[in-house]
């Protein structure tokens, strides 16, 4: 009978599949576990991982932050607050700058909004505290002595400064096109 043979075949196939499955799991018993044990081994995170926020400095060791409030405005949980002030030479800075890390969701929108690359997120994520108030970071906690992801960039060389000299003499500025010689 064809039906009978079919059923026998199905049972055999099922048995073979069972044995294969059990064999596979048995073999895995002798393989090295792929677990990375966290506190002992810390996996190096990609540089663009989003965790603790810092305020960086430009190559001239000045604070990059110009207290434009863009990060504060873009923050979806309103965890950034600051007070702008102006230096004698006209450059703006933050008189105080505060991030409440107990509210921060590490979305990175502040970093995207920042025109001067001042506010940046770092891969350092081990910031747990028992007391919520200790998670409020002031400017001196946030300010670091380096340029973060871009060591060269200096906003005041590109914008916000008076250009002296000819047109096209500024950084990354092309020479003006001569209309007379630009004919096809």
């Amino acid at each position: 009978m064809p039906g009978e043979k079919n059923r026998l075949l199905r049972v055999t196939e099922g048995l073979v599949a069972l044995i294969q499955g059990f064999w596979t799991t048995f073999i895995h018993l002798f393989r090295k576990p792929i677990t990375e044990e966290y506190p002992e081994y810390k996996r190096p995170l990609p540089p663009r991982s989003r965790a603790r926020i810092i305020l960086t400095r430009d190559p001239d060791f000045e604070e990059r932050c110009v207290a434009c409030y863009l990060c504060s405005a873009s923050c979806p949980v309103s965890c950034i607050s600051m007070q702008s002030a102006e230096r004698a030479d006209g450059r703006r800075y933050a008189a105080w700058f505060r991030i409440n890390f107990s509210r921060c969701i590490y979305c990175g929108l502040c970093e995207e909004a920042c025109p001067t690359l001042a506010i940046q997120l770092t891969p350092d994520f081990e910031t747990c505290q028992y007391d919520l108030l200790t998670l409020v970071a002031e400017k001196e906690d946030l300010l670091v002595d380096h340029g973060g992801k871009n060591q060269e960039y200096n906003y005041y060389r590109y914008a916000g400064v008076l250009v002296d000299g000819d047109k096209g003499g500024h950084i990354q500025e092309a020479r003006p096109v001569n209309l007379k010689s630009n004919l096809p």
Partner: protein
Amino acid sequence: MGWLAGIILLLIKLGVVLVVLLTAAAYLVYVERKLLSRLQIRLGPNRAGPFGLLQPLADALKLLTKEDLVPEGADRFIFLYAPGVVAASALLIFAVIPFGRGWMFMGHEIPMVVSDLNVGLLYVFAFSSLGVYGVALGGWASNSKYSLMGGIRGVAQMISYELSLGLSLVPVVMLARSFSLVDIVAAQAHYPFIVLQPVAFILFFISAGAEIKRIPFDIPEAENELVAGFHTEYSGMRFGLFFLGEYVTMVVLGSLVAVFFLGGWRGPLLPPLVWFSIKVLAVVLVLIWIRGTLPRLRYDQLMHLGWKVLIPLGLINIVVTGGVLLWWGS
């Protein structure tokens, strides 16, 4: 004087069995987590104590100190005592399981079994059926749709597989000519019954796996459909009791397989207690291996397997065994 010594002896035996059984159940959780993680090339618990050996202790402490929550609208009394039914029915089954040869102590023989009932096998079935009540009542009293679904599924599954569980053991009784578990072990003096009854062994193993609601038969607590099934609403030590019941049942099941098919405590060279432990552990390890390998059955597949495959096979097995016994004479 005689009866006083008897009662003291009984209490000592009860105490020892209870402590050993509970410790075994607690460490079974550890063994399961460890072995299962290795099957899945993970490490498993290794933080609490050396190799994570204190993990069961930490878990017990955690469960005991957690809040014992009763959901709003729950049938309070039934909700509170259902976990006890599960744990108690699991623990009580062990009373009839012989775990060693009788010791001679001060001229008296002390049998290595709490109670040698002459209807031991029926007692085992009675209490494994009582375990269903814990699931059903716990699921019903929680006043939660997931719990109710889990409870209903659990009852349907356990009642279905109780039949094949019972049928698979009838040939064993026919061979041993006794319901007493001590006599069944005694009947396997020359060779274990797994040699004579491989079909019954497989039937019993599968049905028992379904009885204790483990993967691949864990549809009463299917996480991805029912949160946690009948014990969704339980917390703290009441959840712990469900858990404990499950793992005690695993030990009990291992013992039953050992008693019915693997020759109980019999074995060469090593002492009986060691042989018994080895056999129980082997069954338990296979159960964990199964959990690490097989996916969960669908509800209709489960019922199909129970009613259309296992029960007819069990019946055929009984008829064939009876015929052979009749033919052979005795």
